[in-house]
Each structure stands twice: as structure tokens, then as C-alpha cells.
């Protein structure tokens, strides 16, 4: 798929250098990567390796220090280029659940009736219909993450950018939401860049898995995951799944060891 002539996302030698009090800090180093239309790309790497930084640059929320990073616009100019599911949820505490989900549409001037309809539809799909008029402080952490995911989906962007959307969840809720994500992705087939700490999650969800090195964040390896879709939680029992996970894990643990030795 990487050979697709017109990639949806194209990164060419993307580098991010932060100016800090103690000098330069390279967070992302020489990132070159294409993502095809409709591809699900997962990124894994040790904590602090620059995953969120890369995603923020991709979202246009932070400048690129050098290199080029573009998302190819779609045919409809009204469709937003990207929507981010933030690592910290970032749903607005001062808006109700349904107002949060309808936020992107509201900013684009969609009428109140229509945007609440769309938002309600998404809340129904993820089992949050009853909580539409609750404020975020009244719902659980898992629900908040679902709201934040659905806010991005309701915005119907060209590209979905997800930063550890299931990161802070307990194991059971996590599995439920992984299934939900798989189902929704099968239906929408959006281009997704998905950051996660979990190798299982990366292999389960991704068409490809990018493994990043510890600081400075470089691409160590890109794995094509040739496991047929539709996938589900049972996919994790396949022998192929274990093989991929094992291969990535070997490489990652060597990297983590190297990073720890460097710090000493």
C-alpha cells in the first residue's frame, strides 16, 4: 500500500527541534513516511520518543522545524483535513456530552438541528445516548474517552489522528472499545494515524505498525501486518498475531534497553 502513487499523508525528512533552557532537544528526527488513503497506521515507541509531537505537527498544531508534512485534501473542500483524539481527552468540561460531540460541526456552521442529530446518532452507536445531557465530570473516564473519540468521528475528517485514545483505561473497557473501534473503522474506512503504547493494540488495529526509537524519535522499523480483515478480539489468538507481536517486541525491548543504558 505504501507504493500508492498519491499518498493521503506524506512526511519527508520531518524534524522537530525544541529550544529549551539547556539547549536544543530533537524530539522527532528525520521522519519519512507515506500513509495511503484508507490506511490504518499504528505508531508505537517508548514513552517520550516524540509520538505526540509528530501527531501535533501532523494536525498543524505545531510547526515543523524542517522537512515537509502534508495531508492531501479531499474532493469536498468543506471536509476538515484532520481531527485529533487527544491523549488527555480534552473534551470541554463546560459543554454537555452532546454539545462536545457536535462541536466540530458547530464551528463549521452546521445548523443546530442537524448537528445535534448527527451527534445523537454517534452517541447511540457507542452506547452513550442516555448521557447526552450530562457534563463530563458526571461520567466515567471510559465514557469521556468515548466522547472524545466520537467527537472526532462526528466531525467526519479526511484523516483521523488518535493519540493513545485507550491509554488510561482498565483492561476490560479497553477490549470493549478496541472492538468498537474495529467495527467503526470497517464501516468508515477512514485514513487513521493511531498512537499507542500497546503492541497488541497496534498489531490488532493496524495495517502497518511503525516502531519508533527512543530519543531522538526516529523510525526504527515499519511492519506490514498481513492479517485479514474484518478483525476482532479473536484475531489475537491467531499464530500470525503472536509472530508479529514477538518480532516487534524483540526490537522494542532492545531499543528500550539501549535508551536506558544511554541515560546512565
Amino acid at each position: 500500500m505504501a507504493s500508492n502513487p498519491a499518498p493521503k499523508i506524506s512526511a519527508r525528512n520531518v524534524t522537530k527541534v525544541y529550544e529549551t533552557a539547556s539547549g536544543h532537544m530533537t524530539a522527532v528526527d528525520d521522519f519519512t513516511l507515506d500513509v495511503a488513503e484508507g490506511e490504518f497506521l499504528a505508531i508505537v515507541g517508548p514513552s517520550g520518543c516524540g509520538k505526540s509531537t509528530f501527531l501535533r505537527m501532523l494536525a498543524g498544531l505545531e510547526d515543523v522545524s524542517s522537512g515537509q508534512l502534508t495531508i492531501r485534501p479531499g474532493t469536498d473542500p468543506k471536509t476538515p483535513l484532520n481531527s485529533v483524539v487527544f491523549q488527555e481527552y480534552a473534551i470541554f468540561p463546560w459543554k454537555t456530552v452532546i454539545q462536545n460531540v457536535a462541536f466540530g460541526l458547530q464551528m463549521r456552521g452546521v445548523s443546530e438541528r442537524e448537528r445535534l442529530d448527527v451527534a445523537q446518532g454517534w452517541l447511540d452507536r457507542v452506547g452513550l445516548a442516555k448521557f447526552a445531557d450530562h457534563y463530563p465530570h458526571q461520567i466515567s473516564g471510559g465514557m469521556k474517552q468515548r466522547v472524545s473519540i466520537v467527537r472526532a468521528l462526528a466531525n467526519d475528517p479526511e484523516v483521523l489522528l488518535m493519540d493513545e485514545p485507550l491509554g488510561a483505561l482498565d483492561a476490560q473497557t479497553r477490549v470493549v472499545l478496541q472492538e468498537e473501534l474495529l467495527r467503526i473503522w470497517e464501516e468508515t474506512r477512514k485514513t487513521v494515524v493511531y498512537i499507542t503504547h500497546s503492541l497488541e493494540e497496534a498489531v490488532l488495529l493496524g495495517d502497518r505498525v511503525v516502531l519508533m526509537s527512543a530519543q531522538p524519535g526516529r523510525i526504527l522499523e515499519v511492519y506490514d501486518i498481513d492479517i485479514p480483515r474484518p478483525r476482532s478480539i479473536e484475531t489475537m489468538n491467531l499464530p500470525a498475531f503472536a509472530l508479529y507481536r514477538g518480532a516487534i517486541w524483540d526490537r522494542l525491548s532492545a531499543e528500550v534497553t539501549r535508551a536506558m543504558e544511554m541515560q546512565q
Partner: protein
Amino acid sequence: MTPVQQDRRAVLGFLLAIVGLHGALTLSGQWHDWAWPAIAVSFIVLVLICERIGRHVPLRARKIYERTLALGFPALVLAVWEMAGAMELISPVWFPPPSAIGRALWDVTVTYDRFSETSLLGRPWLIPQEFRAGGLAGVGVLLSESHVLATIGRVFAGFLLGAIPGILLGVVMGINQTVRLMLDTTLAAIYVLPKIAIFPVVMLMFADPFGEGPKIVVVALAVFVLMTINTMTGVRTIEPVYLMAGRNYGAGPLQMLRHVILPGALPVIFAGLRIALGTAMIVIISVEFLRAKQGVGFMTYYYWEVLIPEKMYAGLVVVMILGVTLTGLLHWLQRRLMPWKR
């Protein structure tokens, strides 16, 4: 013995101790000399009694118990105060008994002071009569003699004139680093200046230094500085990720203000408004002490000059009632504007 019986016995013992202490002192004719230490000891024993009782209050009666403590104790203080006055433990000149203050409060409410040409509320019961005689203008003249309305009017006008520009400038300073760097030091310097110290300068600026203008402006200035600093802090402490979310979901500058920045800063803005209200009360009462022919502060000071202490206290009571009412109003507004905090 069960704990209940134990505590019941203890409460009884404590009560007897209080009665015994005061009884013994009275009988030996020494109560007058030892009254204050005896009252202090009684207070401590009273706390012990209430704690014993509190242990056995069932959960559903808890609210009633707490309210009884919260309202009952001030009532007890008033009673002791009244008694201490009657026993000549305290001078009625400095501490007139609550009953006298109550009577004075009634007195200033219903009577018109010919000398200062004022009354506390503006004698609202005369409104129908004045309306028949002079129409709305007549009612206006009547109400313009009111101390309370004069003070409330100044506080409201000053508050609005100060808070609205203050919040606007605070937002700008919160968003724009250049403006912030240019104004921050100046504001911090004005912030520590006691606002009443500006009053003479403000009077200089007005053609009529004794009119309403300087009074309102000095309140407005105090509120303005406070609200600017608070709003700026509120805007600056919004989690950056909310700003990123706003931008990422396509909010323009005005939408950012309306949907992210203002609601994000609102809790801190309201905390600022409450502080500003307290400051506004201090400033307006001081200003009325200094230069006014009307107002609750003027009234209090006036009765000091003519030495009617119970009416002075009546003035203080009115100031307290005003403060509590205005704070309640602010709470109401906060609940309306910030439903997400319940």
C-alpha cells in the same frame, strides 16, 4: 455502661459544672470579678457538651444538628452580650446591647432625619402618597433620600464600570504576550496600592469633587484592577490542550473566545468577582466616611459624630446585610452562567 449512657452522664456532669461554677461565684459575691474567665470556661465546656451530643445524632438529623449549632451559637452570643450589658460588665457606650441595636435599626428605618435630610430605605411606604402628589418624579425625590439605595447604586455602577472593561482587558492580556508584558508591572504596582489612597487624585479629576462621579470611579478602579489580573490568570491557566482542541476543530478567533477562552476562565473570573465585591464594599464605605452626604457609610460615621452608638451599630448591621445579599446575587449569577459546576 453503653457509650450512649456514658455520654448522657457526661453531658449532665458538664451542665452541672457550668451551673455550679456560676452559682458558686454568685453566692460568694465574686461573680462580677470573675465573669470573663467564667464565661471562657463555660464556652469550652459547652464545646465538649455539643461534641458528646454530636456523636449520637443520627445521619438524617445531621443537617438539623449542624444548623442548630451554626445559628444557635450566634444567638447565644447575642444573649450573653445582652446579659453582660444588663449586668454592666461591658459599657453600653461601646457595646450597646443587641436589643438597643435592634430598636435603633427600627428607628432609623422608620424615621426621617431632618438634619441630614435622609432615611435608611427612603420610606417606601410613602410611595403611593408621593406618586399621587408628584408622579414618578415625586417618588424619585423620595427614594433619593435613602442611604441604602445610594450605597447600592454606587457599588453597582462602580462594579459594572470596572468589571466589564477589566474582564475584557484581562482576556487580551491573557492571550497576547506583548500587551501582558507592557501592562503587567504597572497593574501589579497599582494592585498593592490601597484603593482608597487614589480617592483624592480621583476627586481632583472631577469638576464636582463631592458629587457621585469620584465615588463611583474609585470603586470602578479598584474592581477594574482586580478583575484584569484575575481574568488574565484565568485565561493563562486554561489547559493548553483545550486551546488545541478548539483550534483543531476549526474555531475562529471569536469562536475561540466564546466557546473555549471565556468558559475556561469563568471559574477564576467568578472567584475574582467575589473578591472584587468585598473590595468594592470596603472602598465605598470608606469613601462615604470621608466625603458623602448620604450612604450607609455616611450614616454610620454620622452617628459616631453625634455619638449615638446603637445607631452606629445599626449602620454596621445594614452593611453586613448588604454584603451578604450582594454575595448571594453573585452566587445566583454563577449558578446560571456555570451550570457545569452545578
